């Protein structure tokens, strides 16, 4: 690939072997830089640096007319870079190493880019790299950035195909490229809407190790994190189809943590395979159901979030024994699902081993906590009373809610928190509470997920950000089943450090959330943020989230819901063919508008006559043509004469006695 092609002088002339125009190469290299930048930010530093150096060097080659490197040098550079890539990733398989290799290949191709053909291949590779970029990021801004890069690449392609390209015409090329992209949009939309979507990948997707998620995790380590930064990234958005629930019910259930070693809390999935089991008794729902649709941002896990507790669950998910919704495959794309949840429920009896798991505590750790709990249980209190006692502890003792708790480095972090530091956030309270309950022989578990959300009046939906990640507890009570208890909510507001955190349990309406503390500027900023989020929401709904279900929904609306994939493809092809043919016909029959209504009118007149065989030669003057037409159509002589008279008067004479409108009317009425 990187060797010079042997050129046979005897072969026939080939257009694409010619030298590309200089200005085209400059455009191309500029556009390529824009293509590669997002990749460079992801790649290891040395790779980005070498790519950047190669492109800069290639630009210098263009300006200073340096020679391109010899075949040997190219071979050495190529092998070297490929080897180092392998060393870095240990594989060429997978998205990250694949895209790294592609980026490097593109840069290397520049070293031997000589003919128009080479440059065009580079443009195509550039397009491909843009497509690869979308696999990493599909956000609206990035999308716009990359589509403007597509425009730049297309402009480069146009210039490369105009050998006499001159620098003064760049605006023309840019206009041409953008008009072509605009003209392509209708066709693109047809394909985008109708092309049948398959749910599920064609081949198994390599695991995406590199991407980490912010916010929720499937385990927590008490006391290790000393600072939580509330990421404003959106976790999911919810559109309520029925009246939204009150703020106290806005608990979005995520992974449930059972197992603890005293410090670390984690799910049980690995040990007990519990998630494949179903609860012993069906949940008894009561009260009003809440209908809503969640649009979930990809987070590479199988978790789907739902309000407690979901009843009608989507096809793509199943409900685990701990009532967590799980998807069949990891959520790698924006996913939409509709659920009905009931805030009032009774889970009823549980499997004994479930209760067993809910009582697990490591021996010899956190002795003070266990002592406190056993003290309560010895008072022969009812479980509900023990729960209240624990909550009262948090409420009445000087426990503080803070986002920057001190590190708990001792062997017994729960003890340290409960009796020494007394400063922590939701994880601390949830873990301590569950530990207390278990020590008091009440089955309990930590539930993680999100709490609350902010309402976006612009799009009439709820935004749940990563900063809303939360941990709370569930205890199992006789006759009631699993009951949610949020120990963090027991902390009175005066002991909550930041203002925002005091508001989180109160309401979901942001205007009120900001309350009288808001200024005009913050109001405006909030407004802006809401609008921007609404745009993002629509983007997710209609662009990124346009998958098989969304397609079906749309086709149903259009009355095409019953079409099979084959029928859709046939319909797509027919529509495309029809669009292209009609454009072609339009181009064939169009009367080229001259911008002058009089000339256009006369051309229409000539076309009408030409339709019956009286063709006007381009060099034929109006009077000569008039004579010809009158001779051929003596019965229309008067009308033809009048039209010609009007035309001559309007086009050639200085007098303004005749009206253009009248002339056009005459022409339109004229029927040969």
């Amino acid at each position: 690939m990187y060797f010079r092609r042997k050129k046979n002088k005897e072969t026939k002339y080939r257009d694409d072997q010619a030298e590309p125009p200089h200005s085209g190469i400059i455009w191309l290299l500029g556009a390529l830089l824009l293509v590669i930048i997002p990749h460079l930010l992801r790649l290891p530093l040395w790779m980005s640096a070498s790519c950047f150096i190669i492109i800069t060097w290639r630009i210098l080659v263009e300006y200073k007319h340096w020679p391109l490197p010899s075949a040997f040098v190219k071979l050495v550079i190529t092998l070297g870079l490929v080897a180092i890539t392998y060393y870095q990733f240990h594989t060429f398989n997978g998205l990250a190493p694949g895209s790294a290799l592609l980026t490097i290949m593109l840069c290397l191709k520049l070293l031997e880019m000589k003919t128009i053909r080479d440059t065009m291949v580079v443009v195509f590779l550039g397009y491909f790299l843009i497509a690869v970029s979308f696999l990493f990021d599909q956000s609206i801004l990035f999308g716009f950035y990359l589509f403007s890069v597509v425009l730049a690449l297309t402009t480069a392609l146009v210039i490369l195909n105009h050998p006499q390209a001159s620098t003064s015409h760049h605006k023309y090329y840019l206009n041409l490229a953008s008009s072509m992209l605009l003209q392509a949009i209708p066709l693109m939309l047809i394909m985008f809407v109708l092309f049948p979507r398959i749910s599920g990948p064609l081949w198994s997707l390599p695991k995406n190790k590199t991407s980490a998620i912010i916010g929720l995790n499937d385990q927590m380590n008490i006391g290790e994190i000393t600072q939580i930064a509330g990421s404003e990234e959106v976790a999911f958005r919810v559109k309520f189809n029925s009246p939204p629930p009150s703020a106290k019910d806005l608990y979005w259930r995520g992974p449930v943590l059972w197992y603890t070693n005293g410090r670390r809390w984690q799910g049980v999935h690995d040990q007990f395979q519990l998630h494949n089991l179903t609860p012993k008794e069906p949940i008894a729902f009561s009260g009003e159901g809440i209908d809503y649709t969640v649009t979930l941002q990809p987070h590479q896990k199988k978790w789907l979030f739902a309000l407690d507790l979901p009843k009608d669950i989507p096809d793509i998910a199943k409900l685990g024994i701990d009532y967590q919704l799980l998807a069949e495959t990891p959520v790698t794309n924006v996913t939409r699902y509709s659920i009905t949840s009931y805030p009032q429920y009774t889970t009823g009896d549980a499997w004994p081993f479930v209760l067993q798991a809910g009582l697990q505590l490591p021996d010899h750790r956190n002795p003070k906590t266990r002592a406190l709990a056993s003290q309560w249980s010895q008072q022969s209190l009812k479980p509900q009373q023990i729960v209240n006692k624990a909550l009262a502890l948090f409420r009445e003792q000087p426990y503080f809610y803070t986002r920057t708790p001190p590190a708990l480095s001792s062997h017994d972090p729960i003890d340290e928190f409960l009796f020494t530091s007394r400063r922590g956030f939701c994880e601390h309270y949830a873990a301590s509470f569950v530990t207390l309950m278990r020590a008091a022989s009440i089955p309990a578990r930590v539930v993680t997920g999100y709490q609350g959300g902010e309402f976006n009046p612009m799009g009439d939906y709820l935004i749940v950000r990563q900063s809303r990640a939360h941990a709370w507890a569930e205890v199992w009570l006789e006759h009631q089943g699993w009951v949610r208890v949020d120990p963090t909510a027991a902390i009175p507001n005066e002991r909550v450090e930041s203002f925002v955190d005091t508001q989180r349990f109160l309401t979901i309406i942001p205007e009120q959330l900001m309350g009288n503390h808001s200024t005009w500027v913050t109001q405006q900023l909030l407004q802006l943020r809401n609008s921007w989020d609404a745009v993002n929401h629509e983007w997710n709904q209609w662009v990124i989230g346009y998958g098989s279900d969304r397609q079906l929904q749309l086709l149903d609306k259009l009355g095409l819901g019953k079409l099979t994939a084959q029928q859709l493809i046939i319909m797509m092809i027919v529509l495309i063919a029809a669009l292209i043919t009609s454009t072609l016909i339009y181009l064939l029959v169009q009367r080229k508008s001259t911008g002058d209504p009089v000339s256009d009118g006369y051309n229409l007149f000539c076309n009408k006559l030409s339709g019956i065989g009286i063709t006007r030669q381009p060099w034929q003057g109006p009077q000569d043509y008039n004579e010809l037409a009158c001779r051929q159509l003596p019965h229309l002589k008067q009308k033809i004469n009048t039209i010609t008279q009007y035309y001559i008067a309007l086009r050639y004479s200085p007098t303004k006695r005749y009206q253009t409108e009248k002339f056009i009317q005459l022409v339109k009425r004229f029927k040969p």
Partner: protein
Amino acid sequence: MSSSSYLRRFFHTTPSETGPIKLTQKRIYILPTRNGVILSIVLFAMLMGAINYNNSLTYILTFLLISVAFVSMLHTWRNLYGLYLDIGKCTPVHVGSLIEVPVSISNKGSQTRLALNIAWPNKEPIQFDLKPNELQWVKLTLPTDHRGYQTLGKLTIYSQFPLGLFHAWSRLQFKQDCLVYAFPAKNGQLPSKNSQQDGSANSGMTGSDDFVGLRNYNSGDSLRHINWKALAKEQGLFTKQFSGNQSDELVLSWNQTGSTDTEQCISQLTRWVIEAEQAGLRYGLHLPGQRLPTKQGRSHRHQCLSALALYRK
């Protein structure tokens, strides 16, 4: 137009035409280029990726590029559509040199047409752009290998602009023959007057040096006949004309060449005609079955040379 004639045109068996020819939809063919095929492979790979990752933006990009390719097909096609082509008269040349064929291409629309190519098949093309309502003359060269009329091959006009993904072309056969003079022999020595066996053409002319008049000086006129007096008076350069100026008369004939080979004879005579004209002589040409009277001037030269070029053709 019936389908059979359409097919015939496709296989380039149409009879030659006279210009101007308008490029209509029936004359323009369009096929993807090699680069177009490469792009389609790239696009297929992108589509596979989009399906596999169910990535909407990759879908959009893939479909957008497919659509742009379709749109560029129409643009490429329209780049040629509606052009008028015509062919000018070509100036005769001698065998071995390149003949120049002027071709006019006129853009009568309001659309700019860039990167048009015109060429004989498989030869290096001439590239040009046309502004709205512009007419351009392009001179195509053609090697010559025999005397007489040279028929022009099929002219190809094509374009791949704007994206180089499609190749639109049209082949035109103009009804035009270009005259090619015979190759002039190396020996430029004119035959001496004594060797003129065929004196009949001369006999009518008396040897009197009658002054007939003056005429404007033409390059090649003998210096002896310049009106020096007039020049000295700064009246300009004039040539004196005499009737029956025998010393400057020459009749070139077949026999003088001393060769039996027809082509060699023609070649030698061609050379003599050029030399005689250059020396400012009045000369005639006698070929078997054809006699050209004694005259002078460019058009006479052309008559003689074309008679030689077309001899027994």
